[in-house]
Each structure stands twice: as C-alpha cells, then as structure tokens.
C-alpha cells in the first residue's frame, strides 16, 4: 500500500500512476486523507458511483466535497448536497469557476484532481496547460495541498511539471 507521507510537504504534486491500478491507487490516497477536508474533482467516475464505492470501502465522506465533470456524460439526473456538477468534462471555464468557488467557501485541506489525463481525452494539451497554469496560481495563493494523479504520458508530464512542486511516480 502506498503511503501519502511519501509525497512530503510539497503543495502541488503531479502523481504518475499505472493506468491499470489507477482507481485502486486513487482510492488508497483518499482513504488516507479521510480525516481531512477534501475537495475531489472527478472527471473519471460519477459522484454517485464514487459514493457507493466509498461506502463499500468504509471511507468517510462527511468531510469530502465533490466537483463532478463526468456525470453530465451519463445523462442520469443527479443532485447531491456535497457536489457541484459541471456540464461536461471539457467545460474548463465552468470547472475553474467551480473550483475557485469551492476553494473559497469549503476551504479544503487537500484537493485531488482526478484527472488531467481524462481532460486530455476531450481537450488539446495547450488548453490543459493554460488551465493548469491558472489553477496552480490560484492554489499557490491558499494553504490547500493538491495532488494531480495522472497516467503516464510524456507530453502531459513535460508540460505540467513546470506548474507543480514535484513529480512523483508510483508503480
């Protein structure tokens, strides 16, 4: 099992994970952070599915707030008090507004952005670079720590590493 202490005290971490263990590893991270206030941005799994999985795994969600950019793809009507729904994964302006608002109101200790790799399915890398630059600047102005789990992609790592404090690879 991975230990989040290995990530050290850096504020912004780009975390490279194997794709075929990605979900399991992200879940391990969330489980270890579950005493903290977490902002979980999900572009991979709908909020409802995550909540179900968390319950099954015994992970507390009372301190977690979600921004869900993928449920719109499912066209399943949803609403939840601990979640903001964004209209599409590629709607990065809306996503930025939702993150800024949540950082200010919810004041999380930790943000998990799941994931920039998913964003790359819907947007060109240049758009993601601009988004990350803006997001990292915003986060640097707060005390929030952020983890960006991604799957191994040289183009993404090369371009995003300049906005984070460390790039860590877990196998």
């Amino acid at each position: 099992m991975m230990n989040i202490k290995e990530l050290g005290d850096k504020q912004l971490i780009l975390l490279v994970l194997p794709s075929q263990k990605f979900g399991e590893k992200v879940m391990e991270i969330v489980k270890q952070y579950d005493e903290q206030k977490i902002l979980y941005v999900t572009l991979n799994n709908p909020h409802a599915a995550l909540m179900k999985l968390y319950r099954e795994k015994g992970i507390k969600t009372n301190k977690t707030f979600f921004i869900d950019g993928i449920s719109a793809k499912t066209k399943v009507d949803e609403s939840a008090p601990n979640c903001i729904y964004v209209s599409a994964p590629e709607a990065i302006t809306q996503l930025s507004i939702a993150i800024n608002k949540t950082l200010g109101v919810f004041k999380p200790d930790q943000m998990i952005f799941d994931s920039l790799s998913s964003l790359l399915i819907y947007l060109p890398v240049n758009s993601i670079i601009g988004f990350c630059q803006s997001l990292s600047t915003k986060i640097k102005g707060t005390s929030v720590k952020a983890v960006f789990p991604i799957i191994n992609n040289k183009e993404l790592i090369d371009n995003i590493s300049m906005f984070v404090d460390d790039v860590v690879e877990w196998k």
Partner: protein
Amino acid sequence: MLNLKTEMAGAMAALVVTGGIDSSSDVLYSATQKFNKICYVTINKPYHTFSTFFKVNGIDPQKVFFIDGVTKTTIKNPKKDRQVLFVPPADYFKSIEKAIRKVLQQQHPDLLIFDSLSSLLIFEQEATVIRFSHGLAAMVKGFQNKSVFIVLEKDAGLGVAQNIGMQMDKTIYII
C-alpha cells in the same frame, strides 16, 4: 478458473485483459454461474453464435440479454428475438450507447459485459474510441451497475485501455 463474482467483490467496474481468442466465453460462462441478469454487449460475434455455447454448457439463455452490434452490419432485417437488441450500423457508436442506456434503464441487469474495446478499434480511429469508451464507462458507472470491459492483451498498452483503465476499480487478467 475465473470466478467473476469473487474477482468483482468490492469493485463496480473491471477491465478484463484476455489473451485467447475465446477468453470472452470464459468471462460469460463465469458470469452466468454467479449472476442472474446479465447484459452482454457483443461487438465481436453475432448473437446467434451463442446458442451452441448455451447448449454445450447447460446455461439458461434467459439469464443473458444481448446487445448485438455485429448482425445488422451484414443482415438488414435479422429475425427478432426477445433476448436481443440489434444495433443499427448507422451512427454506430451513438446507437450502441443508446441501446446500453435503454437496457440499463429498463432491465437493471446485475452485470454488464462489454465485448470488446478491441473490436471498437476496427470501426473508428483510436482517439474517437477513447472518447466514446470513456463516456460509456462513466454512463454505466452512473447507473451503479457492475460492469466488465474486455480488451485483448495485444491492445492493453493502447490509449483506449490505458484511459478506460483510469475508470476501472480493478484489472483482471485471463491470459
């Protein structure tokens, strides 16, 4: 021997990496031993070819509802059957998604098996398949159904398997 129920314990969605030509039959066989209502999406072989499989293995065919994405690509008006929904070739990916949504909404299967991501690569460019499969996996998870997405071992390193792998709770290897 594969025990899908045990493998899927604590997981909603799994990527199944298969090595053999007929490994998907192992997945279906295992599913029918432990799940009662299965939705099987076949992009690999037509629905009618499964009848022998059911007979040989003594499986009740009523347990499995098929979404057949193959037959109508060659036969315009296949014989209707209560256990199958034929996907029209026009606007193919949208039609598959629509058929899956309909079955999830109306039949609430215990398990959905998608056979296979590798077959989708025959129809479209990889980038299109990645985008489609990412949305599809999200949709299936949104319905909170258990699901299995099959990919051939030779394609496990491709973007389509890598990207959908992010959404899966587990990867199962049958090699």
